């Protein structure tokens, strides 16, 4: 033993931590947005698409879900410049994370869409709703309500997974931690603080998403 914990050095770097925290939130927000859009398109393609579209959607989902995020980030990080796309590291991280989240979201949304009984759609047709009205009110919103818990867990996992982006030097919270560590050598203290911040974020996000479900699905049929 004989080790004294020094959290002072870590808290002295609160500006760096705060900056990292803001970037983590930003990264999480944009990734959820893009990942959801990708997931929705892929889910629709895999349910309603032509055989080719279905196959492509399937291939995308299986490829992403069966390989590690870290390797996917490396491929995007080194792959984009080789096809002539030079971007800042934050957009690169966002692209990598969104491609990853898109596959998981697609799988969840597909399950949701398939959980809507055919008779519901037929009832919609009988009522004279247009195709887009049927998709929106009869299929999508009830489907979202059915899979909302899985979606919530996936988004929280994604928030935690943004820490992996530190490995391609995206300056988010975890990366800020490693910078402070190299400056102060207080490794254990730094990562304890970082871990607590992530834990708080996870709880907060869960709370927010629970509130979100109250707002989104207010009209519940009993």
């Amino acid at each position, binding site marked *: 033993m004989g080790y004294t914990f020094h959290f002072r050095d870590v808290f002295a770097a609160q500006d760096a931590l705060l900056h990292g925290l803001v970037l983590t939130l930003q990264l999480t927000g944009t990734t959820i947005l893009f990942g959801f859009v990708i997931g929705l398109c892929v889910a629709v393609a895999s349910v309603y698409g032509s055989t080719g579209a279905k196959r492509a959607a399937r291939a995308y989902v299986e490829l992403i879900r069966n390989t590690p995020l870290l390797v996917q980030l490396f491929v995007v990080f080194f792959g984009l410049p080789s096809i002539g796309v030079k971007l800042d590291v934050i957009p690169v991280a966002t692209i990598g994370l969104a491609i990853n989240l898109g596959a998981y979201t697609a799988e969840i949304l597909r399950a949701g869409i398939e959980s809507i009984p055919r008779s519901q759609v037929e009832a919609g047709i009988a009522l004279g709703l247009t195709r887009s009205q049927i998709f929106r009110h009869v299929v999508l919103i009830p489907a979202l309500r059915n899979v909302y818990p899985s979606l919530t867990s996936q988004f929280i996992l994604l928030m935690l997974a943004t820490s992996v982006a530190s490995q391609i030097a995206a300056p988010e919270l975890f990366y800020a931690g490693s910078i402070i560590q190299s400056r102060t050598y207080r*490794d254990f203290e730094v990562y304890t603080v970082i871990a607590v911040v992530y*834990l708080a974020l996870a709880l907060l996000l869960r709370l927010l998403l629970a509130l979100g479900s109250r707002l989104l699905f207010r009209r519940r049929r009993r």
Partner: protein
Amino acid sequence: MIRDLSWVDPLYLVFALRWTILLTLLALAGGAPIGLLVASLGNTSHATSRLASRAYIGLVQGIPLLAWLFLFFFGFPIFGIDVPGWLAATCGFSVYSSAFLGEIWRGALQSIPRTQWEASASIGMSHVEQLRYVIIPQAIRIATPPTVGFIMQLIKNTSLAAVIGFVELTREGQMTAAATLAPLSVYLMVGALYFALCYPLTVYSRFLERRLHGAR
């Protein structure tokens, strides 16, 4: 030393797979007993132990895996325990998998209807007999598909051990990429190897799930 990517490099990557597999097995060996404890605590009639089980799961799942790895990696030396990297990684992954396995298994135990307990009690079984002959056989059938799915998740996540210097598939890939300056081809190969390892498990998990629902 910069050299060209040669035919031995994919071979080295394939050999590095064994460390990925070994780390996964070590994590399961460490995580399964704790997970079993978490699952059984979550199924007692005791409110405090149920709460403790849920708090543990929430705590572990609320912190990024990368942070767990670093906490163990830097935490042991503070207490004067000198552990090699692989042991720190094993501890980190064990904690991580114990929470997820605990949650899966708790759910499986809970999904056995109360009437099964009552029926087995009414034919005079002791608590241990109830578990041994009635509850656990049914719970295992329910828990197997998600457990296989989680093992696949774990294999993918062992790639994070590369960050604390454990030489498994991803770390081997990083070293090859650094030596050959061909990162894209190397990481595509690494990805393909992970896929070759994980995809069969995904298919198997799906097969088990279908069989389970077919049998109902």
